[in-house]
């Protein structure tokens, strides 16, 4: 019988059952040359099954997840509701009006807005009296409102910057 070719030896070692194994086996017994080639292939096949490829870093999965998850927003007030920021914005506008118009003007506006020409309920009368007799340092209130408004605005800006298009429910 002629020598086994490389493909026959490889098919034999792969366990290919689509061809007869008796003839090659019989040939191998009497042919040291083919036996040597068979042993060489066996050694190669054995080595090919050894995983020498360096593994990925241990935190690989975590780093992929970091890329997919939205980062937790770096918030000055983590529990601050976004709506509160808009409310603060409104107050800020109001505060600016007070600043430019003066507290007494605001008081006048509020009094004018009161339905004085109508038959007013008693709580409105009480409210009007309260406003009329009010004597508070408006500059302090204004300063507090301004600080709150600025903080809320910065908070909103930071939240928007950290928003990601893909998001998981965490």
């Amino acid at each position: 019988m002629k020598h086994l070719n490389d493909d026959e030896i490889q098919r034999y070692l792969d366990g290919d059952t689509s061809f007869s194994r008796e003839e090659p086996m019989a040939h191998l017994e009497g042919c040291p040359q083919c036996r040597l080639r068979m042993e060489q292939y066996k050694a190669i096949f054995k080595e090919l099954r050894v995983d020498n490829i360096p593994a990925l870093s241990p935190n690989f999965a975590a780093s992929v997840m970091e890329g997919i998850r939205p980062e937790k927003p770096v918030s000055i007030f983590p529990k601050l509701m976004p709506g509160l920021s808009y409310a603060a914005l409104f107050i800020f506008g109001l505060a600016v009006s007070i600043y430019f118009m003066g507290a007494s003007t605001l008081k006048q506006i509020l009094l004018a807005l009161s339905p004085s020409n109508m038959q007013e309920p008693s709580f409105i009368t009480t409210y009007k009296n309260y406003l009329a007799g009010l004597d508070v340092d408006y500059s302090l209130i204004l300063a507090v409102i301004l600080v709150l408004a600025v903080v809320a605005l910065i908070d909103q800006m930071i939240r928007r910057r950290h928003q990601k298009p893909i998001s998981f429910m965490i």
Partner: protein
Amino acid sequence: MEDTAVIVQKILSGNSRAFEILIKEHQRLVNHIVYRMVSDRGDREDVCQDIFMKVYQNLAGFRSDAKLSTWIARIAYNRCIDYLGKNRVSVIDEEFDEAIAEITDESSTPEKKLLEADLSRLLQNEINDLPIQFRTIVTLYHLDELSYAEIGDVMSMPEGTVKNYLFRARRLLRERLTAKYKEEEFRP
């Protein structure tokens, strides 16, 4: 192990833990493909990360009758092809003829023989010198135990071509090793 369809459904409904499990189950396979195809070790982990990002972004298009590992491997293979294209590295068979011509080149000096005396190390070097498609097929077949059909699916080539490349790759490895060792020395 959970059913593939269940895992995919969980991920699509926003379960991040399920996706983390998917990564851990398939990162070895993806790493094998990337390692064999991307020679720059500094880029390998980034490419692996890109692959899993693509897996996540395209998961809605995964058909549950397909095998998830094969689907992920195909994304990995295609991403590596893109990477090679951008880095102007050829994947096609032209390399094979050059590889054959190099069998008896000067790289088999006695000094180098001494350095590479260990068969395992020598073989790993030889695998890395194979054409890209050959070394990828050898790895997917022997290390990841994919069938010819699955490898064909991953690499978009007929089963017959996969088998042909695998046999040629292993023959090439034997020829290179016997060229470096004396015939009788290369004996297990």
